[in-house]
């Protein structure tokens, strides 16, 4: 292993990561505020009124970012869980555990804002359509992961059981993503495509992307904050935790 690699692997230990995370958190809060301010300004004051949906379409600026994050966080969570499972790295499992509540929150908000968008545009809060149903399953997968981990007393065994659940659940993410093309859904097709040129106004697209960046930075900030609490809870018996400034004082 080179010196550079060793430097990075050092941060796989909770003891080294705890202070590093503490230093990184403020940076991600500043980024969250910056992207959020510009994103909200574009969402409300620059993006034009929609021709068919009037001002009601502005829900897109929270609905699409929360939906993207709910899927993306799941993939990252499952990734950390897999690393924790295969390398027996406890910090990775803690990262997975830390991301689950935020992912669940994003899935919930995606469903909530979707309902508030569906009611005026489709005339209903909810339909059992492929996109909506698979997103609901994602929400339940997060809840299942969290309750499974909480129900097993030994944290390392809880990590393993949770990781298997998370990995099996990964199959749901492409189902959500492609549900609008695979099935005939009430839900509209993808808002943003990598293969086609954007069909919406550039300011709308930028508003959406910046709001997504805001939530991305938020998720990192919150994930790091929560993992610090988890580290202390799970490493409570260790000498380094007892020697921490905030514990000794």
């Amino acid at each position, binding site marked *: 292993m080179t010196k550079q690699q060793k430097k990075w692997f050092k941060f796989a230990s909770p003891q080294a990561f705890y202070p590093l995370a503490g230093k990184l958190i403020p940076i991600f809060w500043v980024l969250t505020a910056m992207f959020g301010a510009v994103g909200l300004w574009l969402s*409300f*004051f620059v*993006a*034009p*009124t929609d021709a068919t949906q*009037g*001002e*009601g379409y*502005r*829900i897109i600026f*929270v*609905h699409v970012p*929360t939906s993207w994050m709910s899927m993306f966080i799941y993939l990252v969570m499952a990734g950390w869980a897999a690393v924790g499972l295969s390398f027996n790295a406890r910090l990775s499992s803690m990262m997975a555990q830390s991301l689950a*509540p*935020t992912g669940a*929150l994003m899935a*919930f*908000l995606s469903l*909530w*804002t979707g309902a*508030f*968008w569906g*009611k*005026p545009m489709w005339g209903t809060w909810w339909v059992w359509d492929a996109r909506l149903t698979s997103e609901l399953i994602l929400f339940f997968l997060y809840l299942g992961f969290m309750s499974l981990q909480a129900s097993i007393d030994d944290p390392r065994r809880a990590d393993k059981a949770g990781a298997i659940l998370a990995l099996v659940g990964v199959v749901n993410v492409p189902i959500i993503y492609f549900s609008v093309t695979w099935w005939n859904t009430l839900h509209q097709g993808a808002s943003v495509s990598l293969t086609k040129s954007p069909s919406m106004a550039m300011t709308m697209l930028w508003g959406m992307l910046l709001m997504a960046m805001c939530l991305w930075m*938020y998720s990192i*900030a*919150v994930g790091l*904050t*929560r993992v*610090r*609490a988890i580290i*202390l*809870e799970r490493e*409570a018996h260790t000498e380094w*935790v*007892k020697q*921490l400034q*905030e*514990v*000794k*004082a």
Partner: protein
Amino acid sequence: MNWHSASEFFAMGGYALYVWGSFGACALAFLAEPLLIRQRHKQIVRTLRRQTAAEKLEMEHP
């Protein structure tokens, strides 16, 4: 600029309930989550402090 007055902005072209219901729920969630985590962190630090204090006491008066 899309709006001519503040009341027009808050009315959201008749979609006020839906737009503010969505943005409001998100704002609430993104304010509450960090506060809850901070609470959790404080809680564990408090427990750890009590533990170390108890251990110290035990060392001094065995």
